């Protein structure tokens, strides 16, 4: 065959490189990592890799957060189903975040930078393990294993579905035993989603650190989506300069993760006093308390939250939950009060609940009828969505007919009674 494999594949229509753009032919002058990033090459039984260590003194404030070793985290660890961590404390936790060659996961994704941080008596200690080439992966995994075994648990942001599965895969592929298996793990992402779903436009760590922690990143920051390409370019041309931004990004992520951990732990312990209370946060925490079985504190939070005011739909949703909490406890009087309050805010569902209450609990059909008719009157005006309206009306008409029959039966019986 006269032509090369490359010519042949091109003739068959294979495109070269991303969108057919050829990569630059002459690589830039290589710049070694050591000359860009403070750190050192560390030897392990599995080869060398590059390790950068940073100390943040006790006085360091990450945004508005200054790390406090004596942190109460009872409720946070209870939410994370690792209550015993609470006794071990902040020092026993390892904060972990990885930078990878892709966001898709699978066996082809390499965590080329692993950041590990923890709080010590002398401040916050950050270790970053960087693969200068993918061949250094075994050395990085070796160091991770050594390091991780010193801690009682790990804290991540989305680590349960991303960082840890990827690290697990790397351990299997390199024949290492997995240090994360069975280890306690608190992933703050699902908690953040719960607490700030309604209040904040995005629950990304980058957004939370601005909105909650008052952190501002410097010009060194590179956006996460660019990181795989920066690493590919570095592997290709040997210029480590842009990696500094990746190291900075990773360091900030870990510091923000630890700061968010402290912030959230504190907020959950004392929601009304930890910071300037936000009604939406308060009712989200109330709900979390409720699920953890802390009903009395939950009621208090609901009341405080509702009294602070919030957007109408969430207000009504909260009233409904709040009422349900009382109803489940059988405190009907208070339940009815809340429902009536919701009706004042034109909440049709509360009207329906009241109708149910009078029909089934009190067996007062005329009262039930009044609430049903009131609900029917409200649907047209206050319910949006034609389909929902029709469904609701059908159900209410059904209820009204049934009540009508009951009332007629009652009247008949009442009429007969004197005989």
């Amino acid at each position, binding site marked *: 065959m006269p032509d090369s494999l490359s010519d042949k594949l091109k003739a068959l*229509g294979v495109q070269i490189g991303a969108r057919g753009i050829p990569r630059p032919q002459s690589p830039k002058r290589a710049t070694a990592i050591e000359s860009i990033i403070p750190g050192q090459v560390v030897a392990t039984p599995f080869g060398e890799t590059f390790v950068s260590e940073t100390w943040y003194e006790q006085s360091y404030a990450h945004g508005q957060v200054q790390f406090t070793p004596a942190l109460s985290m009872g409720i946070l660890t209870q939410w994370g189903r690792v209550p015993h961590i609470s006794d071990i404390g902040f020092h026993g936790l390892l904060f972990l975040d990885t930078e990878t060659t892709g966001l898709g996961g699978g066996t082809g994704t390499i965590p080329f930078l692993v950041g590990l941080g923890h709080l010590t008596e002398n401040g916050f200690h950050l270790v970053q393990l960087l693969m200068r080439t993918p061949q250094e992966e075994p050395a990085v995994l070796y160091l991770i294993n050594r390091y991780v075994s010193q801690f009682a648990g790990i804290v991540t942001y989305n680590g349960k579905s991303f960082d840890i599965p990827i690290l697990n895969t790397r351990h299997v592929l390199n024949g290492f035993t997995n240090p994360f298996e069975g280890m306690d793990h608190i992933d703050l992402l699902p908690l953040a989603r719960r607490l700030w779903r309604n209040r904040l436009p995005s629950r990304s760590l980058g957004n939370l650190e601005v909105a909650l922690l008052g952190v501002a990143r410097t010009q060194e920051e590179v956006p996460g989506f660019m990181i795989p390409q920066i690493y590919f370019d570095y592997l290709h041309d040997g210029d480590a300069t842009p990696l500094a931004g990746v190291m900075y990004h990773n360091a900030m992520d870990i510091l923000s993760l630890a700061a968010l951990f402290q912030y959230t732990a504190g907020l959950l312990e004392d929601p009304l006093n930890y910071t300037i209370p936000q009604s939406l946060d308060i009712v989200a925490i109330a709900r979390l308390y409720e699920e953890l079985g802390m009903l009395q504190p939950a009621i208090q939070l609901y009341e405080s939250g509702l009294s602070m005011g919030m957007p109408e739909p969430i207000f009504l949703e909260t009233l409904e939950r709040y009422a349900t909490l009382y109803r489940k406890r059988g405190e009907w009087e208070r339940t009815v009060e809340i429902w009536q309050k919701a009706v004042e805010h034109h909440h049709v569902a509360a009207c329906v609940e009241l109708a149910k209450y009078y029909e089934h609990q009190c067996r007062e059909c005329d009262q039930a009828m009044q609430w049903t008719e009131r609900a029917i009157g409200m649907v047209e005006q206050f319910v949006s969505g034609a389909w929902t309206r029709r469904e609701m009306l059908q159900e209410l008409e059904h209820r009204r007919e049934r009540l009508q029959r009951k009332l007629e039966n009652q009247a008949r019986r009442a009429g007969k009674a004197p005989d």
Partner: protein
Amino acid sequence: MQHLNHLLDIWRSEPTVASNIVQWFVDDARAPLIEPFPDDMHPSLRAALEDTGIPSLYAHQADAWQAVRAGENIVVVTETASGKTLCYNLPVLQAVIQNPRARALYLFPTKALTYDQQQVLDKYSAALAAHLPSGSRRPAAGVYDGDTPVHRRSTVRAQSNVILTNPDMLHTGILPHHTNWADFLRDLRYVVIDEIHTYRGVFGSHVANVLRRLKRILHFYGADPIFIMTSATIANPGEHAGRLIEAPVTVIQRDGAPRGARHFVLYNPPITDENIGIRRSASQESIRLASDLLTCQVQTIVFGRARRSVELILRNLKHEVNAQAEQMHAYRSGYLPAERRAIESGLRSGSVRAVVATNALELGIDIGGMDAVLLVGYPGTIAATRQQSGRAGRRQGDSLAVLVASASPLDQFLMKHPEYLRSRSPEQALINPDNPLILLHHLRCAAFEMAFTRGERFGSLDAQAVLEYLKFLAESGELHDGGERFFWMADAYPAAGISLRSTSAMPVVLQVEDAERLTTIGTVDLESAYWLVHPQAIYLHEGQSFEVQSLDVENSLARLKPLETDYYTEPQREVTVDRISTAEEAAVPGAKNAWGELLVTTQTTGYRRIRWFTHETLGAGTLDLPPTQLRTTGYWLSISEETVEKLRADNAWNSDPNNYGPNWVVQRIRARERDNFTCQLCGAPEMGRSHHVHHKTPFRQFTSYLIANQLDNLITLCPTCHRRAETAVRIRTGLSGLSYVLNHLAPLFLMCDSEDLGGHADMECAFENGAPTVILYDKVPAGIGLAEKLYRIQDEVLARAFDLVSECDCKEGCPSCIGPAGENGYGGKEETLALLAALNGRTYTRPETAHGGSMHA
């Protein structure tokens, strides 16, 4: 069964049926070939089999057991419903009994088959539970495919001894996440691949590479499982299985299953027009036969070829046999699993009397034996014919299978040569795992799954070849060349980018604009898009017709709009073929044949609008579409100068320029005057150059130039329209007749569709010094081995082509032999036969009654 025999008697004596029956075979009932349970079979397994009503093994099951226990890979080639599944289930169950950690991976070509086999396994497992020591876990089987809910997946992985899935899921879902499967893969003892004859062509070449990837990953986990495969009857089961798994394979084919007597009937619908060879349609005839069967209370499956024809046949059948309309169903892809299950159990219980099915029902699904099966047209391969007709047949009692032929050349050939359906199959399942495009995709996937070590092989591909690909991928930026190892280094998931069932990575999406809404109705691959969905094309989908508004190739999008029309469109294509290299060539009688790499350039230049039913041309349009290029492998046959000379001397070579006679110059001007110097097809006026004048009925069909050149046989056409009109005529030369017949006959040997092969007749082939050449090329880029195989078996194919054309009942060529005769009735059949005779090294004398001068008086 007396119902069936009663009906068969009626058919034998009813002339309108009997006269169409061209062959009637009866296979006598066969007793089972039984072997006792092997000594090394675990007593619990033996007891469980006895509980399910199995007191011994059939010969092939016992042979399979022995071979697998001896550590051999096997392929079991026995008939439909012969108990093939026990051949793999027994060794797997035994392994699990002996070691509850043992695992097996089952691959099925379809999802329906997967669920069916899970139930079979569950049945054995339940029977086994009673005989296992208390407290021990019974073998668990789990389906893991695209329908498995995500939250169930880790449980299925962790707890199933047997995972049932398909190659596509292995490719996209399992291998790229193999670390999640580490425990499963470490203990993998058996890989079962069912129905391997379906893994041929592009699909098979992909699957072979998926298996290379699987074996590579298994090597990493230290597992070395035995492969147990099954196949329908093909010519090369052992070779094919060996190419798929790239290891020695033992063929097991001592079929020991019993069966009742079987009738196999070949039915050729009657000819309605002798001149152009038109027959009654296979569907119509099948409906008639099926009505007879149902009226006589014979449970029947009718196999149609496409979804649409299935619904059509069902509708007519319900109309014919109204009383049983409620007991008839269609069965095809697109039905919900629950609907299918209901039909399957209805068939088993007998409450369903008739099913009209596509090949969705062909593979393995357990429906018990039917009384009768009707095949509406040859299903495309002998293996499918056997599998479908094998649906008829009970362990005892008579059964019937009828193949109702369509007009296609292969159907008609088989009507004359039923031995191909009966004795040793000529079909070769072909794959080419080293097709560069397919290989490149899988090397990317493999690199994603695990870094390549320098010097590593990939299946049978040697380290040097692998290295070339890896370097290419490193150069293109997808791999990092780390010296010793190559690492996947791209933010992409390569398995998601390639479907195992096609080579086209970017299909063109067909979108229909309704009121305010866009609906996607399907896709076509890019190569076919210019042809099928060019602007103004009429595209048919689910019985609805659409007109193509625009074709945006850059964004892989075609916009369609519903349009009820009384016409369809036929694209006009110009094909040129260039040779890149010759792999092998040899002199053969009358010609030279060769195979090698070709570059096929195709341009869709225009289209004709043709009225349904009458086939008259309503108009034409030109298109300005870019040419597409296909680099592939092809087989070609160049006719030698001596052969051409000889045929010409015999007046059997008719592509020479004509001398139109002394009055031509005058008649030509008169025709143009009459037609107002305007093209009568597209309406273009003459612009400084004379238009052409075309003979409606070709000149050479007349004995007198005076008659040929009469004005009513002449029409003025612009050069473009003339070329198109001549293209229609060219099919009728001997060379194009040869191209047509080879294109349609070769699939019988290559186990492919005639659509998989491109055919081109080049009167003056540039790369063969202007020799007339027939070229057949693989439509898959870089080819999947069809061309080379054709080169090797060309003597056989040419001999059968001669038979096919010479035995065809038509006079002047028809769709069943050398292609459809045009409106003018002249077909070039004699020329094709003369050429085929020369190529077969035999003499051919044209019959006395060759087309005479009286035809066109």
